[in-house]
């Protein structure tokens, strides 16, 4: 038995600043703030849509103000970071083994990006058409 073990205190708020890997982790986690905020924007848009054409036009105009554009640009950056980090860990959470061969992680990740590109292109096409 230890006569007098010493317990070191660790920071509860700034611990993640100590190493780049923790900073990247926190950036990934904080992406949820922007995804959540964007979701709130969508809900507000839906409510404005329900109020009628005038309210909707005001909403679309508000979307094009500098503050809104800045927010959406930041949100896009974080959303893309979420996409990249999510796809990168998919082979770890759901490994695929065919017989004795492990499907390479790169193949699984590549397939996800391909799917993402198709979904994004489809969305852009549907809105633009």
């Amino acid at each position, binding site marked *: 038995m230890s*006569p007098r073990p010493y317990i070191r205190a*660790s920071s*509860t708020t700034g611990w993640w600043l100590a190493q780049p890997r923790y900073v990247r*982790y926190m950036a990934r986690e904080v992406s949820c703030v922007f995804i959540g905020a964007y979701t709130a924007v969508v809900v507000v848009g839906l409510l404005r849509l329900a109020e009628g054409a005038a309210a909707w036009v005001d909403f679309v105009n508000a979307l094009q103000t500098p503050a809104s554009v800045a927010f959406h640009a930041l949100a896009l950056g974080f959303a893309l970071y979420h996409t990249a980090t999510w796809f990168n860990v998919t082979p770890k*959470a759901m490994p695929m083994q065919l017989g004795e061969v492990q499907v390479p992680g790169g193949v699984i990740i590549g397939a996800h990006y391909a799917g993402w590109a198709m979904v994004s292109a489809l969305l852009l096409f549907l809105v633009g058409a």
Partner: protein
Amino acid sequence: MNERQIDLEILRYDPETDEQPSFQTYRVPCQEDWVVLDAVNYIKDELDRTLSYRWSCHMAVCGSCGVMINGEPMLSCKAFVRDLPDSIRIEPLANFPIERDLVVVMDDFMGKLQSVTPYLVARDEKSIDDGEHHQTPAQLKKFKPYTLCINCTLCYAACPQYAHDENFVGPAALALAHRYNLDSRDVGRAARADVVASNAGIWECSFVGACSEVCPHEVDPAAAIQQAKIAATMDYFLGWLRPGREP
């Protein structure tokens, strides 16, 4: 062979005399091919016989020599001085109580290893005369990586969730549980679930992934835990649909 003068700044703590730990610096003439453990052994042999630390195999298979080297959990026998700067800060593994100098108290980890039923709960109880369990290479490959853990606890030192909550069962113990859950000969997932699928088990993990990054044997405990989350989630919902079903 070239020698390089390296300053090793080591956190010392004597429970019999010290109120708290403090750093002590030693200048060590290091050979090109040395690992940090060689430098620490030099200190013990030539400079300061009171320095306490764990080591054994000097080849990264026993898991004894884990320390923090410039803030990163590493095996001191695997950390080559040629990859490190002229000043090396060595501390005992983070998130564990310090017993003395670089020796940490491992009791919590030992208890957690035992708590996950870390042995085969066989589907068919066989006697020696019945012969061996059969397993194909493909079935072995599924769980093989998770058998490689050497219990060095670098993963616990790297894990921020373990730092925040010492109740967390932790990466190595959960990877070990996963090793058995994936084993085709084993039916013990239900027995392990009370610990593994508890709030202090897999659900404490937020997939930082630092554990897998510092693991010296590429066990990938982070992957094990995420796979366990998916399995536990399926067990949970299937348990609603079919009560009394053994996972």
